[in-house]
């Protein structure tokens, strides 16, 4: 049996087994090949002869960083360098090419890099300030997605714990918040944040557009995060909590040291899925007037010399979104395997 399996099938055998093993699969194959042929032919003709890619090449910097002052690009390059460096180190320890001890200080590196990068982008404290309405394009998309997920994480975990709490008052407030937000479309939440947030704040507080956008994303994302974390909390067996109690841990310590770490590990795939969703959702901010990747594309399409070049622009930014989202989902699958989710 094993010698039979290890034999490599010839191309003909492979074709017969995978494409033509019975009559309807043969028909399906032929139909698919026919569709593929015309599809690819049409796309190639368009890409090579009809599309005018100049709209992309002429606006490349607008797509990536928008109207960020050109003489300050070095700060963005430095930020990118820091991120890639940390990323490389993390990947190295993760795949065990670098010593394991790095694991203990890498989280601090990431935590420290967060304010530094924001400082590099926004300036202040000795650097020339760059107003947030000049951060556009992919830069703004990334900044908003990262800030929103980082800040919505603690809120989401608190809401999840609140929803699981023994205290009815806390539980009902959490449920109310989570269900109302999850019942609303994101664009409604963003509308609320853009238009009404300032109505609820004292007159002195004036948040700028970007901050209001981030606030909307946080309100929204926290509710969904809470539900994901709740799933993880529910998956922790009672025995774990009872064991902690026997060891003399009090309730807050039990949650912090025993329950949460296990719960969060169990929901890593869901959390990554959520981050991918949030990354895609930043595009909705273009509807409330922010110039992130989708918003700046609409601005580029409004240039008179590039009018009606929709397909080129939208395909290009779709490709950018796709690269980010797809690599995140690949990384999460890898992480899941490495942490042994569902095996231990």
């Amino acid at each position, binding site marked *: 049996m094993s010698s039979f399996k290890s034999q490599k099938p010839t191309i003909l055998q492979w074709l017969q087994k995978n*494409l033509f093993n019975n009559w309807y699969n043969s028909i399906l194959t032929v139909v698919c090949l026919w569709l593929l042929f015309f599809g690819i032919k049409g796309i190639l003709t368009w890409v090579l002869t009809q599309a005018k890619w100049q709209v992309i090449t002429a606006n490349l910097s607008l797509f990536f960083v928008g109207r960020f002052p050109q003489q300050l690009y070095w700060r963005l390059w430095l930020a990118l360098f820091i991120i890639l460096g940390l990323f490389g180190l993390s990947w190295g320890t993760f795949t065990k090419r670098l010593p394991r001890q790095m694991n203990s200080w890498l989280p601090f590196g990431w935590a420290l890099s967060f304010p530094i990068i924001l400082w590099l982008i926004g300036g202040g404290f000795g650097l020339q300030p760059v107003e947030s309405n000049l951060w556009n394009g992919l830069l703004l998309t990334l900044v908003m997605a990262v800030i929103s997920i980082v800040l919505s994480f603690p809120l989401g975990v608190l809401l999840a714990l609140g929803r699981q709490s023994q205290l009815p008052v806390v539980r009902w407030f959490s449920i109310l918040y989570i269900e109302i937000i999850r019942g609303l479309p994101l664009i409604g939440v963003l509308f609320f944040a853009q238009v009404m947030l300032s*109505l609820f704040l004292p007159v002195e507080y004036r948040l700028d557009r970007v901050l209001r956008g981030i606030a909307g994303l946080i309100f929204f994302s926290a509710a969904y995060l809470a539900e994901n974390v709740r799933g993880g909390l529910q998956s922790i067996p009672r025995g774990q909590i009872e064991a902690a109690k026997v060891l003399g841990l009090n309730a807050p310590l039990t949650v912090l040291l025993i329950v949460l770490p296990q719960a969060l590990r169990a929901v890593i795939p869901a959390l990554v899925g959520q981050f991918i969703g949030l990354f*895609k959702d930043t595009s*909705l901010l273009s509807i409330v007037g922010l110039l992130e990747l989708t918003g700046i594309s609409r601005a580029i399409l409004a240039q008179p010399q590039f009018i009606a070049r929709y397909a080129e622009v939208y395909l290009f930014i779709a490709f950018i979104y796709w690269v980010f989202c797809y690599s995140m989902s690949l990384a999460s699958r890898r992480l899941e395997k490495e942490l042994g989710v569902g095996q231990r």
Partner: protein
Amino acid sequence: MTPIWRNRKFFPILGQVIAAFIVAIIVMILWHNLIYNLHRLGLQLGFDFLQFQASFDIGETPIPYKSSDSYSRALLVGLVNSLRVIVFGIILATIIGITVGVGRLSDNWLVRQLALVYVEILRNTPLLLQLFFWYFAVFLTLPKTENQISLLGFININNRGVTLPFGIELSSELSTLILGLTLYTGAFIAEIVRAGILSVPKGQWEAARALGFKPNLMLRLVIFPQALRLIIPPLTSQYLNLAKNSSLAIAIGYPDIYFVASTTFNQTGRSVEVILLIMVTYLTISLIISSGMNLLNRSVQLKER
């Protein structure tokens, strides 16, 4: 006598009182700010504006409407428009999702790969962008009515929309919205269907095969009913997402409830009332979808004791 803080009920009750107190204070501060700010802007709370004349036109009116009608009538038109999208969308997305999900598990290599490419492209790009693409790059560049494209001989497509033989005419905005929502949601449903089918134990397949079922009958009578148990809960949340995502209609100018509500806000400045209306509408729609799906869910669950 034991001191009161030794009582086991003391800390939970104290905690709740503190929590309620904090929430009450926050709500009071926010409410105070709101009233103050509205007063400063010369606005008052109230739904009387719903009876005022809307005086804007709506592109698509499935029920009679003219611009001299009231805001409430306009919102009703928007609601009907939303429901059209949601109902069509859910039906078509389910069909696409099941087809692609089964395709992902086909024993035909090419079909499997095509289904995978479809899922990975559609799931990893923003829905809004897909809507823009379908609307601006595809629908608006289609030929005019005179030389429209004919699919299968009876579906006519041109840059004004889609015409079906039995008298159904869909505008290009409505067609785009349904197309975009179904293709996007279909990709997510496909993965749910795939996971559901994979969850059915191998023994069930073998038993069905041993009983002599043909592949499609096996799938329909043995595998799928069991897979449904796993499929329905996540499917419900995809339906809810579809309903909420239909609000992206505003990006391509289809007059759904969100579009009409937002126009109403622009004309009247009644942000609090408008957001309340939006909330109530979507919460009601969500509630209807999820209670319907819960009924369905109950009917497919294992009956134990």
